[in-house]
């Protein structure tokens, strides 16, 4: 087997640095282990402190506004379960990245990330995203790579099927107006395809 970790890093670096990605590069080989990512919020990979920090980051990547954001969608639970199973190879990146985030937050504001205001958190995350975070300790783990990984994970946790542990109560699908898998729902009529008839969602509403 070659080094799947390398592909992962390359992808996240590529999406961070060049702003373009190949569809196929998202399709990285991974172990097929994840069976139990139902809405169990028992921690599987993250420590309690890591959990609340990751939750806070996700809350800035997809913030709560007039509609639910990553926190309500329980994206951190998706990430925790992914790190325990399919994406276990990214766990060291999270460990190093969260330590780095803590160091940067302390250098700038002398507080843990979770105790900062949303504006201060955004400032820290922007610094990580740009690769210019003062106090980032680990030259081996670029801060951009950590940021891009959490960003992608947050999006996936927001929009993947709830059975993977995020998108709680279909929060993400409600925000974007996606009714759920079409074959699941029995398909769509010609009138529904042109908006002449409403569509029933997986959670039982009509849109």
């Amino acid at each position: 087997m070659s080094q799947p970790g390398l592909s992962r890093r390359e992808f996240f670096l590529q999406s961070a640095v060049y702003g373009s990605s190949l569809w196929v590069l998202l399709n990285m080989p991974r172990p097929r282990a994840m069976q139990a990512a139902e809405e169990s919020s028992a921690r599987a990979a993250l420590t309690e402190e890591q959990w609340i920090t990751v939750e806070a980051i996700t809350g800035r990547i997809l913030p709560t506004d007039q509609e639910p954001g990553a926190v309500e969608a329980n994206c951190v639970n998706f990430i925790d379960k992914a790190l325990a199973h399919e994406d276990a190879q990214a766990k060291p990146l999270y460990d190093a990245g969260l330590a780095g985030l803590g160091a940067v937050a302390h250098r700038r504001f002398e507080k843990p990330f979770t105790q900062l205001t949303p504006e201060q958190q955004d400032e820290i995350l922007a610094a990580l995203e740009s690769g210019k975070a003062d106090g980032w300790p680990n030259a081996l783990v670029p801060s951009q790579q950590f940021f891009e990984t959490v960003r992608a994970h947050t999006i996936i946790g927001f929009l993947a099927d709830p059975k993977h542990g995020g998108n709680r109560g279909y929060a993400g699908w409600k925000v974007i107006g996606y009714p759920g898998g079409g074959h699941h729902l029995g398909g769509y009529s010609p009138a529904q395809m042109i908006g002449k008839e409403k569509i029933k969602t997986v959670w039982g509403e009509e849109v």
Partner: protein
Amino acid sequence: MAKRDEFDVCVIGTGAGGGVMLQELTAAGFRVVALQRGPFLKPADFDDDELRTVIRDEVFSADQVETYRYDENSPTETGRFNYTANCVGGTMTHWAAWSWRFRPDDFKVLSTEGPVVGASLADWPITYDEIEPFYQRAEWDFGVSGDAAGNPFGAPRKKAYPNPAHPGRSASNRVVQAARKLGYHPFPTPVAINSQPYGARAECVHGGACLGYGCPIGAKATSLSVCIPKALATGKLDLRPNATAREITIGKDGRARSVRYLDSQGKEHEVFARAIVVAGNAIGTPHLLLMSTSGSFPHGLANSSGLVGCNLTLHHIAAVAFTIDEPGRGFTGLHSHAAFDDLHPSDPKRGFIRGGVVGEANSPTNQPLSFALVTYQGYPAQRAWGRELKDYLRKFPRSIAVAAILEDLPMEANRIDLDPTVKDRYGLPAPRITHRQHPNDFAMNRWFTQRLMDVADAGGAVDKWEAQYYSLPTERSAMKGFMHFHGTCRMGDDPKGSVVDRWCRSHDVKNLWIVDGSVFPTSGGYNPTLTILANSYRVADHFVREAKRQQS
């Protein structure tokens, strides 16, 4: 001594090319063994889970390893660059089912255009008229739905499609309006998906997840849903999933003799056959031939020309995403409901030769994760997170994409060979892709992107952006892989300039045949699968007639 594991024919690969051979040769009474890497999936294995199926790709090709380099002087990357499905039925299992006939000039690119510096243009050894009856056969076996009179720029035909076109969705209707406004001639995209019950398969329910997904109800025509059941029903097929071919051996008589393959545990087996058909796609086929070295073929089987693996073509894509002021219902229906072909005919005045077809396309735009992670590439955001990202996601129901499938010019140095260091899980060398683009590709991609921007504007775009998946944003860009693979075992009349003859039989090894996209000398500006199918019917027809002639 145990009885030798021996068959009339061994077919390696069960996708579009191999599937038709299995269907046709078993129907003609041959005893056939089929080897396929990956599992034998059932409709119950397919669902709409985008994370599992498309993003994590746990269903189709989990253990594929490839390497890529831009040219011989560039560093090599390891990854997965081609969107294949390694399972019974092959990549066609998750195809979008766009079903085109190539135009007559697609078979004669060199004589139509003349030589082009830096490109290895070639004519196909066959004409459109020779393959036309087999296109018809493919359309009727696979139940293509469409409007046969819809495309004034399409290839001439003698018979309509067997099924009527599918109804449109709001998004495709908007693209149709826009194309008409620009003076184009839009028509329903022809697809091998049942618009009514056909061929013992169900009518499509327009569930929206086609490209990248297996069809859970079998309405999509694939090798898995059409060919494999027919071939198995003859009782003549020994189908062996989880069988990774690693070498074709050659006998003292110079004929292919056996295939050595590995099961899922890595244990080696050997199966013998009087004829061997390779259909592993334009990456897998040269990969296998190059691994099959012997005294008479030190540089790979059937490779006296030195061209096995060369002239890889992958297509390139121009794509524009835009949003409109009402729901597009893009997550319903097929992958594509509308297309136009007005920009396809070659016109050197545009600053490039050749062209391609344009279609409305719902993936990767009208599926949540793909919209957020893939279509987003190219979106002009100030910040890729926070409120801006959330506002982008809220555009989802009103988003539409149009894409052009563009012909890339072949270059001999673009090729597949064996990676000298990277191995797969069995210890076999990874296929190494060396690929860059001809200048014609960049000119074409830029021009088509502008035309697609015009379509977005004519369609009432609220905002629009170049969706940069598979596009060529800079002159150093290159396709590292795609879903369309062609060219690496060209067919031709000259044994020095091609790998197989007009019947797709090796010039060097008289009982070795290749029936996949690798025999395409040029790639055409259309999705290739219907042409792979038609060519396979043509080869099967010849194979059976030759066998009968030799018997009598």
